């Protein structure tokens, strides 16, 4: 039998096959980037927990939202456009108002003094967890000072307290959360631009070089949003 020359495979239908695959992927996949506002929920409260210590009125920025999506901030009705400015004033207290938290100046000498004192105390009882935590806090402050210089610090009890009604609409809730975040982010961006020349949002937490900067800026402007435990209010 005579050998026939090898026939080439017809590749004409290759395009059709590829088209089929392409259309399959177009249909089954999504392209939208998932973005959102990240939040950490507080762990559940045990029933027998003792009452938290009373916090000074001036150290709490109270934001209430009712079922008609109206805001009551520090006892006064407020438009949502002004919330960011209000929160920024709470964080910085530029006029030294007696209704807003009293900021304390953190200086190099003060931090060093406290670290020395705590180290001595630790030598005497090396197992104290409380002391270790305190020392860690002051050491964080020292590294912050090294990067951004002396800064003004919020009292540890200062926080923004957010409470909403069950009838508040979700979009208003998100708007309020967004404005409160925006206040901190703007302050952080400003500080970061001043000290490091890049806005805070451009710093990358995955990069080793950026980590101390992020930590320092967070020490100066901590994000303190606390959501009140939901209460059952009769409708």
């Amino acid at each position, binding site marked *: 039998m005579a050998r026939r020359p090898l026939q080439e495979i017809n590749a004409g239908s290759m395009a059709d096959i590829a088209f089929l695959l392409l259309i399959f992927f177009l249909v089954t*996949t*999504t392209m939208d980037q998932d*973005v*959102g506002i990240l939040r950490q929920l507080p762990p559940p409260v045990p029933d027998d927990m003792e009452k938290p210590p009373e916090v000074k009125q001036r150290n709490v920025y109270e934001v209430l939202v009712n079922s008609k999506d109206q805001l009551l901030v520090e006892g006064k009705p407020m438009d949502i456009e002004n919330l960011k400015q209000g929160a920024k004033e709470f964080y910085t207290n530029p006029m030294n108002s007696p209704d807003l938290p009293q900021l304390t100046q953190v200086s190099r000498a003060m931090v060093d003094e406290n670290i020395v004192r705590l180290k001595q105390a630790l030598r005497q009882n090396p197992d104290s967890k409380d002391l270790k935590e305190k020392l860690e806090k002051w050491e964080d402050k020292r590294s912050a000072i090294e990067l951004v210089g002396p800064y003004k610090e919020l009292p540890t009890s200062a926080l923004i307290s957010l409470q909403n009604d069950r009838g508040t609409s979700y979009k208003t809730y998100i708007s309020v959360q967004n*404005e409160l975040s925006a206040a901190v982010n703007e302050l952080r961006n400003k500080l970061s631009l001043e000290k490091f020349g890049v806005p805070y949002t451009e710093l990358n937490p995955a990069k080793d070089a950026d980590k101390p900067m992020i930590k320092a800026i967070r020490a100066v402007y901590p994000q303190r949003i606390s959501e009140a435990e939901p209460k059952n209010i009769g409708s």
Partner: protein
Amino acid sequence: MSKFVRKGKKGTPGISTASLPDIIFMLLFFFMVVTVMRQDDPKVKISKPNATETEKLEKKSLVDYINVGPPFDTRFGTEPKIQLDDSFAELSDIAVWIEDNRERRDEAEKPQITTSLKVDSDTEMGIVTDIKQELREAQALKINYSVNKGSIKSNR
């Protein structure tokens, strides 16, 4: 006698389609790389609210979605309902669902699991608060409010 003799008719030569598969394959690979597989069919209508201070969700394989909104199918009513995976669920199902999702993951990845709340912007906060309480009880504390990027002015 002319030197160049035309053989046969002179028609326009057809465009070679030999490279067509290559072009299509290129498109195919582009889509395969930039997209992700669709997670589940939405059964509830969700128009997400807008926000500016957003962060990207890092690892999609470590994100679980809770959808809340009015059902597409009005036979299920018009009140907002919770959708977990591909089916409607009650509040009490959330704890079990969270536990199931934890079981699926590696031990090392468990603390990084994020629960993403995709909630319709006109939903009342009551149901969202209830879900958040359930999540707290289930120790799923890392959450994400899914939003679209945009000015909050359009949230009116």
